[in-house]
């Protein structure tokens, strides 16, 4: 067992746990986007930042990837954490405002404006779909390509993947496209962004209701009509 202090409270947790797990064990809310139980921690979204160590060497780390260490002192909501987190949320809003998940996080953190040039992207490259495909579906059909601003998601060389089974798992976990956000209750729809979606891992014409999590899906219906 490892003993650490989170926001002044002492906690013992199993060796090999992450700081995020320890904080959640104590009930401290830490927002996450790219984290999902059952998938390898990745640390891409930077929402789960916490502050560790003492000034002047204190630093921010992503709690989902940082291993719980003996004697570690963690602050999950220091002003430095909140400031950085709010900026990350603002950046998320600037890129992907149509995502219900991101809107909810922004609302919860009282981020109600963003000051950048508005973009409407359908992917924040959180990598949930990649890990879902590889770790849970054992397919590994999709992955990251390129780096920097050219980083993108897809199959190697954009060729049709032999590995893909059209399971829809990638779309199921996606926080940005949120096909699931409306289901068949259009009054709950907030953005209609799903109508413009081209799923990254599958080809639309092959998308079969039988294999789909999302039936009935607005995108499919548009496609069929």
């Amino acid at each position, binding site marked *: 067992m490892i003993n650490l202090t989170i926001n002044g409270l002492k906690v013992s947790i199993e060796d090999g746990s992450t700081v995020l797990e320890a904080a959640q064990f104590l009930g401290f809310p830490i927002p996450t986007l790219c984290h999902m139980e059952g998938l390898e921690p990745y640390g891409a979204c930077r929402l789960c*930042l916490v502050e560790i160590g003492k000034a002047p060497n204190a630093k921010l780390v*992503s709690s989902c990837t940082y291993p719980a260490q003996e004697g570690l002192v963690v602050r999950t909501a220091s002003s430095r954490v909140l400031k*950085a987190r709010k900026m*990350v949320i603002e*950046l998320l809003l600037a890129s992907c405002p149509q995502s219900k998940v991101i809107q909810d996080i922004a609302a919860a953190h009282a981020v109600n404006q963003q000051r950048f040039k508005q973009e409407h992207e359908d992917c924040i490259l959180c990598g949930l779909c990649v890990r879902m495909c590889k770790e849970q579906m054992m397919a590994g059909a999709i992955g990251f390509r390129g*780096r*920097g601003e*050219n980083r993108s998601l897809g199959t190697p060389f954009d060729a049709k993947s032999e590995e893909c089974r059209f399971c829809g798992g990638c779309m199921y976990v996606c926080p940005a496209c949120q096909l699931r956000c409306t289901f068949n209750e259009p009054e709950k729809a907030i953005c209609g962004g799903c109508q413009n979606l081209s799923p990254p891992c599958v080809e639309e014409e092959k998308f079969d209701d039988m294999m789909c999590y999302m039936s009935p899906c607005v995108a499919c219906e548009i496609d069929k009509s």
Partner: protein
Amino acid sequence: MKQIQSIDDFGMLSSRLHGDRDMEIPTIVISAGTCGQACGANDLIRIVKREIISNGLLGKVGLRVTGCHGFCQIEPLMLIEPAGTLYPNVEMDDVARIVEAVVNNDIVEELLPRDPESGNPITQESDLPFYRNQRMTILERNKKIDPIKIYDYVVWDGYKGLASLLAKSEPKEVVEEVKRSGIRGRGGAGFSTGMKWEFLSRQPGDKGKFLVCNADEGDPGAYMDRSILEGNPHSIIEGMIIGAYGTGATRGVIYARAEYPLAIKHLTIALRQARDLGVLGENILGTGFSFDIDIVRGAGAFVCGEETALIRSIEGKMGEPRQRPPFPITKGIHGKPTAINNVETWANVPVIFRLGAGEYAKVGTKGNSGTKIFSLVGKIKNTGLVEVPMGTTIGEIVFDIGGGSPGDARIKAVQTGGPSGGCIPVEKFDLPVDYDSLAKAGSIMGSGGMIVMDENTCMVDVAKYYMNFLKDESCGKCFSCRKGTQRMYEILDGISKGEGTLDDLDLLEELAIAVKDSTMCGLGQTASNPVLSTLKYFTEEYRRHIVDKRCDALVCKELTGAPCQATCPVGTEAWRYIAHIGKGEFEKAYLAIREPNPFPSVCARVCNHPCESRCRAGESGGEPIAIRALKRFVTDRVDPGAYKPMRLVKSDPKMPGIAIVGSGPAGLTAAHGLSLMGYKVTIFEAEDSPGGMLTAAIPAYRLPREVLQKEIDSLIDENVTLECNRALGRDFTLQELLDDDYKAVYLAMGAHKSRRLGLADEDAKGVHPSINFLKAFNLRGESLVEGRVGVVGGGNSAIDAARVALRQEKVDSVTILYRRTREEMPAFPEEIDAALEEGIELVTLVTPAKILSRDGQLEGIECLRNELGAYDSSGRRRPIPIDGSEYTIPLDNLIVAISESSDLDCVEGSGEAKIDTADNDRIKVNPKTLCTNLPGVFAGGDVTTGPSTVVEAVAAGKKAAVVIDRYVRGDELEQPASPVVPKIYIEPGASVDEESEASRPRQPEISAESRKRGFEEVELSLTEEDAIRESSRCLRCDLEFTRPNQDEVEKSTAESKPA
């Protein structure tokens, strides 16, 4: 090659090689690293070989091909050993002469490098200022060793350290020794190498441990690692073997960029030779210790220099950093303990064991031992690799070794540490270069890139450049780094295009701090440094871009337009009139000159032409367009009547009155502007005639009086009343003006008080402030000087005073005394030349120390000679008087022309109206609105800035007219600026052959002999042919903004065609 089986055998080989070499045979050394090869070193080698063989010199002259020596500026080079002669920038045709000289033990003197100060040839390589101030321990070997010959390395004590420690040291002692040396990682972060090795040695070694040499050098402008990889690969290999012995590592990896083919080639050869010799691989030197090294080629991602990304890349995965802990030291390549050090660190290890840790630690400062190689690039005279002890100041590196700025522009900052580093401004150049000081100043050591920037570098553009690099080179895993760098780039791009707002600056800083805090790896955590450090030290530049929409460095295209127009204080469209001249449309050219400037003929003669200083034709080796001479050509030839000013308001006696004090260029321009707007203007002039400094100070041989008078007369129209002999403070007070019916008062009295030297007896008879001297002559025709005349000062007014003095009847000789060197004189170079031609003596590097007088009459001046000391914050070397160097110059008259200030007594004591001043010699105004502290009172020109140029005064007058008009109407005085770019399209004339020999014409002058005593105008007009030819050299920077977009035209025609 015979494999060596024991340490003793290695010792025997080493001493045999030592004995074999003949130090007496002259050897030609050619540096042929990538840089040398790019400059033609390969051809040089071929020719030298041919010379040697065809002349039967084999055995008499040696040839050694080495890696880079560091001084890239002089490639391709030939270094002659053992003489130490260096031939820089060797031309292929000179090779034969050099080889012949080498055989005869001779020197080809005209090919030698020259001392930048004295101009004398330098016979010894080590005497070059570039090398003299360095301390080479690593790079020195690059000159001695042919990188593809292991014996060359062995001769220079290579693998000696390894052999001796294998013989007698325990691994533990090796680690201790490295710890004692105090060496810190040269990759940038500066972690103690000894500690790292100790951690690795404590890791369980049952599954194997890795050592990695990080040769993924990717910083723009940094190439010190490449020079070691190419020039001395064995030093890295030996370092790694020593490291492996100390830490128990079993495998080594050199992770090199695939973009370094020569480095990889030399490394591959070196590794094979080391294995063949028996110093690498199984059972090294028969000791039973085994270690081998592989090369892994990186595919060129910048982020792979980060250690966790580098490990993933070596494992064959995507180069993407991961969370630390676990640190590579516990879980590295394939989960095995791994220590990663930089190329330079590894190259330092053999040095530690060759010298001993104690000796090694003596170099550098406490906590920062050893030397560090920097790659010094950018706006610097001597580009190249520089090796200095840690703790050397930036100033020493940039000025003493680098030789300072290559042009006239002053150096303003140095960027250290590549994209993750920051900019250090010139005021902080006394900062010692070590890990801790740089970090404190907001930059980092990084791998050692140093990019020097001068005034022609825009800091916003620099930040934008690095952000552009980082947004492409971020791995993209952390959302905040990927999007953060993109957004920072976006904001910077907006600012550089004039679209920024002041809120952007706050957002930029907030974002930069958040990115620094919220990312996972070193790249992201330092990605904000370029932005944060430029924001910290160069906020004013950002504000200039945002508020004034100006880029003073003339880099940001959208804010610059044509450089000639951008640098002109009154915004003259020089490109426009030059284009018209080219087409023979001289009248149109005159209009373009006259519209923005009411003093075209004056400026055509005495303007300091900032437009020429940044003319693009003058960049990269060419000569700027002779813009002022072209202006002179037009103003001499076109009747001013061609210009009919646009009157905005019909003359109306009911328009409010404005009072202007001073009728110099600032006052007259304002009066003219206000008159065109219909105001009734009264100008009060203290002297008998208008013109201010134009009449009082500028001599007639530069500005003929009738030209000046004509121009002044044209400005005094029915709305302007000129009252001469009416001086503020003497004849009326400011309060009285305000009490009168004037709606606004504009103060433009100029700077008419010469500064004093501050020496005793300065009031002795025969000592004259330059303004008094010039005024007496120019206004009243009185001659105050005779006999031997001295002039103290180096500005234009000193030269004017000297040249006017020379033209006095009773003057025998004139001597100018200046405290710095001629290059640093603020006067126009052509004026200095003219003065010298006329026979004026110039004495530089002197400080007047004492005025010698008898009975209140000047007899002479005692001076101290100066030497040049350390560089001051302006990047010039400070003159320091030498004790005991006093000497006397006998003089009958002394003119003090060190600077001028304004006489502000006149505005003092004006009752209630008390004007705020700065340093008691300038009126304090808001530079944007020219407002003083009193409502309705404005001031501009020299009285607010100190002595400046005519064109600046004209600009102030124009601004005053606009601002006073706004004030009278009750409008907002300060209005948002918009970028000034060329707007009028003038079709280019017939295209000129680019190869044509056209060069800048020299303006004709009357001969020095005939002009020496008279006041006839010295400079003459260009001929029509010359003017048209000169205008054809113009690069027409305006067309980029005004030309109808060709692409779009073509596209639209292409689209309209059926497929």
